[in-house]
Each structure stands twice: as C-alpha cells, then as structure tokens.
C-alpha cells in the first residue's frame, strides 16, 4: 500500500524521493515549492489526517528541516485495514538565515496553531497565515528559544537569577 503511494508521488512530481523504512512508514523528501501540491495530492488519496508539523534545527548544515506527519482516517466504520496503520513523513528544508514557506491552512484547517507555534519558537515565516502572533511566550527573545544556539541555562543565569532577593 505505502509502496504504491510512494511510486505515484515519484512519478507525479519532479525532484522528489520516496522510500519506505521500517514497518508502515514512508519517508518523502521534497523541496519547499512542491510541498503544498504534495499535501493536496495525499489528501485526495485518503491521507487526510495531519497529525503534526514539526521542525528540527540542523545547525551544522545551516538549515531548518520541516516535517509534516500524515495518517489516514478510516473509510468504513468498522473495518481496520492496512492503510490506516501507515504514516507518511514528508520533509523539506529552508535556510536558517531567511526561513519562509507557504502556509498549509487552505489544505488542512488544523495546521494553524502548529504553524503559529513554529513561527514563535524557530522564527519561520509562513506566507498567508492570518495570525502570526505569540501563542505561548510572554517576553521577546533575541534568538528564537528552540534553536540550538539559544542556551537556556545561560539565559536563566543572566536574566532571572540576577534579580535581587528582598531582605526580610
């Protein structure tokens, strides 16, 4: 099942590589311009559950790696088949200095909070997202907090521990 989807993706889109790895896992690597059309293609072929949008900071290569995880809801109400067991991992890379990519909201409605969190934690700009305002954080940080060059122990030492105690 996952093998056929992989071959169809390789035939329909240029510059894409798909390989199966482990039980029920398919890994697809693409460049950032074709990601949205691959997501639409997979949604039409019944992989319509966007589980997670995540990001990994590859600091040696100077890139941020975006990961989209897709599963399949059941088609009929009480039959559990092979297709629902599989997960498709779709990866792309953006540069660390100027990260930007188009938003996936028009394909999957629940992509909105994931992209908002990645904007404030990694600094990625999603073109066309309606509200890229802070979700969790209260203060502004010079480097986005989840990148590898932000040292959290250093930050606690300098900013939070330096506040004096009140003498009692």
């Amino acid at each position, binding site marked *: 099942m996952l093998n056929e989807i992989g071959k169809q993706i390789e035939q329909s889109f240029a510059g894409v590589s798909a390989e199966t790895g482990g039980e029920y896992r398919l890994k697809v690597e693409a460049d950032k311009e074709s990601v949205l059309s691959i997501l639409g293609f997979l949604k039409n072929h019944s992989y319509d559950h966007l589980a997670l949008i*995540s990001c990994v900071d590859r600091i040696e290569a100077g890139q941020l790696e975006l990961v989209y995880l897709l599963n399949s809801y059941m088609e009929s109400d009480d039959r559990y088949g092979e297709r629902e067991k599989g997960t498709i991992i779709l990866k792309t890379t953006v540069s660390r200095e100027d990260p930007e990519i188009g938003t996936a909201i028009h394909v999957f409605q629940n992509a909105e909070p994931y992209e908002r969190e990645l904007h404030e934690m990694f600094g990625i700009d999603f073109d066309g997202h309606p509200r890229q305002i802070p979700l969790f954080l209260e203060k502004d940080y010079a480097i986005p907090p989840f990148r590898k060059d932000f040292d959290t122990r250093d930050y606690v030492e300098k900013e939070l521990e330096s506040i004096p105690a009140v003498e009692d």
Partner: protein
Amino acid sequence: MEILNEKAVSDSTRELELYFGPQHQGMVGNFSITLKVEGDRIKEATANPGYLHRGFEKLMEYRNWIQNFPLVCRVNVIEPGSMEMVYSRGVERLAGIEVPERAKYVRSIYLELSRAASHLFGLWAYSNMLGFDTVSNWAMYHRDLILDLFEELTGGRVYHIYIWPGGVRRDFPESFPDRIRETLHEIGGKVPDYNNTFFNNRIFHDRAKGIGTINRAEARNMGGTGQVLRATGMKYDIRKVEPYGAYDEVPWDVPTREDGDAYSRIMVVRDELIESVHMIFKLLDRLPEGSVYNRPANPFKWKIPAGESYVRLESSRGELGLYLVSDGGNRPYRVHFRTPSYPHGLTVLEEALKGESISDVGNIMMSLYVTAPEIDR
C-alpha cells in the same frame, strides 16, 4: 470575568469583550478564553494558552535518555502513564529493545487502570461544572481507591516512573491481582447508582443535548481524535488500528454514539470506563508467567543509534504521538509531542463555542476534555 471594553454597536445591541480568565470558579486548569458576546450569545471565542509553558522539549535536550523519565511523566498531570509509555516505545523502537510477553500484559493492565482513573477525574470536573456535587464526590472517592492500588505497586500516588525501556520496573506483589479485582468490583457495583443519579437524569439531558455539536466532517477536517470523533459514529481507536501491548489478544469493543454533541461525548466516556473495567478482568485471567524486565546494559551510558521514529497510542483524551530524533549520542536531538488536546483546545473549541450561551462555556470545554498542560507542554 472582567469587562475590558464596550463598544456601542447599535441602539439595540452592544458587543462586550469578556475574559473567561485563569482565575475562575469554572476553570479546571490554567487556561483562558477571550469571548466577544452580544447579550448572552457568543459571537467569537479566542483561546489563550501559555500559562503552563515550561519548554519541555528544550529541557529534554540537556539531559540523558534515562534522566528524561521523571520529566516526561509531568507533561500530562492527569494521566502520566501514557506519557511514560509513549517515550519508552519511542526509545525501544530506535534502539531495537524487545519486551517480554508478561511485561506487555502488565503494561496494558497499568494503562487501563490509568485510563479509568483519568475518566473518573473527568467526571468530577464535568459534574462539578454543572453543579452535581454528589456525583463529583463519588467519582473522586473511587479514583482515590485506584490511586491506593498505584501506591502499593509503585510507591507514589500520582507520578509513578513505572514503565521503562525493556519492560516495567518491578513485578506485581503477592496477591495483587485479587486486590485489583476487589477494587473494581466495588467501583462496578456503584454504576447503577451513577446511572440513576446522573446519566439518566432529566436535568443532565436538558443541559447537554444539542450543545456544542461537532459533526463528522468538521471533526475530520480539524484533526479531532478520541471522544470528539467517536461521538460522531466513527470507531477510530489506535488500540485497534495499530495495536500495541496486549490489546489484540483479548476481545473488546469500541463504544460510539451518533450525535456529536456534549451528551454523546460524556456517554462515550462512561461506556469507555465500563469497557476498561471489563478489559482488566479479561487481561488478569490470561496473565502469563515469566519475567517482566529485559535489563539493558548500563542505561546511564546509553548511546541510541541515529535515526527518527514516530510512535502513537490511545490516551484517555485521544491520539497521543511522539516524534523522536537521535543523532547517535547520549542525549535526544529533538523531541516533539503530538498531544490530543492541542487541536481540541485551539481549533475545535473556537468552532464549537460560536453561537452558544455564556453559561455553557465550561460545559463544552469539559466535554471536549481540554487539558491545559498538554497544550502548553
């Protein structure tokens, strides 16, 4: 609630902006919602998370693989067992560690007890929100009996650190299965009283039927899992779709309802609680002999081979997943939790509150099982 600003929209209506804030009698957990109301009806709701953000995923990159276990169970304070299980399975899949047969059954029994305790906590929260204090006291008492079992097995009431890569940390004590059966008989014997007092009560039906309806197409579009989907008739449960532990070795059923409103979601919770109790009896009857732990060599000096893995399981709130990346060292390179309350609390809640009345905000939020520490991590 504080009144932040008023705008006179027309002569007959005024639009107010209210803060259903963190300090509120009807809020369980530290979460806030900003409401734009007109009279008594909500026109727009905005969820405001972030009061419990600790930056778990960054903290886990500074500690060894084995030092992360006490941290991981605090992501969801109400059901810590499923967090330990998902992290253990992620590490086992990357490192290729096998689990013995008896350990799979023990893990499943422990997870089902955890699920029953979490559903009883949810029942306390929901009936407290509606004002049924009798049923909330009963539910909290029965959950305390299950916590006594946990204290005998692992030493702690709330945080256990029991599931470990390679099995579980210690076996059942002498005649522990008999004590499990006694406790479950006591809880099961009280179910007719719960039915008569709460679930068949006319007041509960009037307050919960037709409120906060999410139909199947909307739930699929917004990434809903767990009770939000099962209340619309779809039997999507990770324990059947991609089985783990000992769930494919006992016969059991996935309970569903049809309508998709708050009443259906709470009735699905009740049916799941009863199904969990039956499943524990069946698992105890088939428990095999053997060891419960495949001891790995020196976990403090582990180096897990490079790679990535995505594992998922069914917690009491929905589909819980973990994306784990390793670069071959003794610390994780990237950890990302896919928690079920994230789409429910941020996307589904804003959709379900449109057009409802102010007095139903807590009702809808608790029936969607929104757990604030899971959203913020």
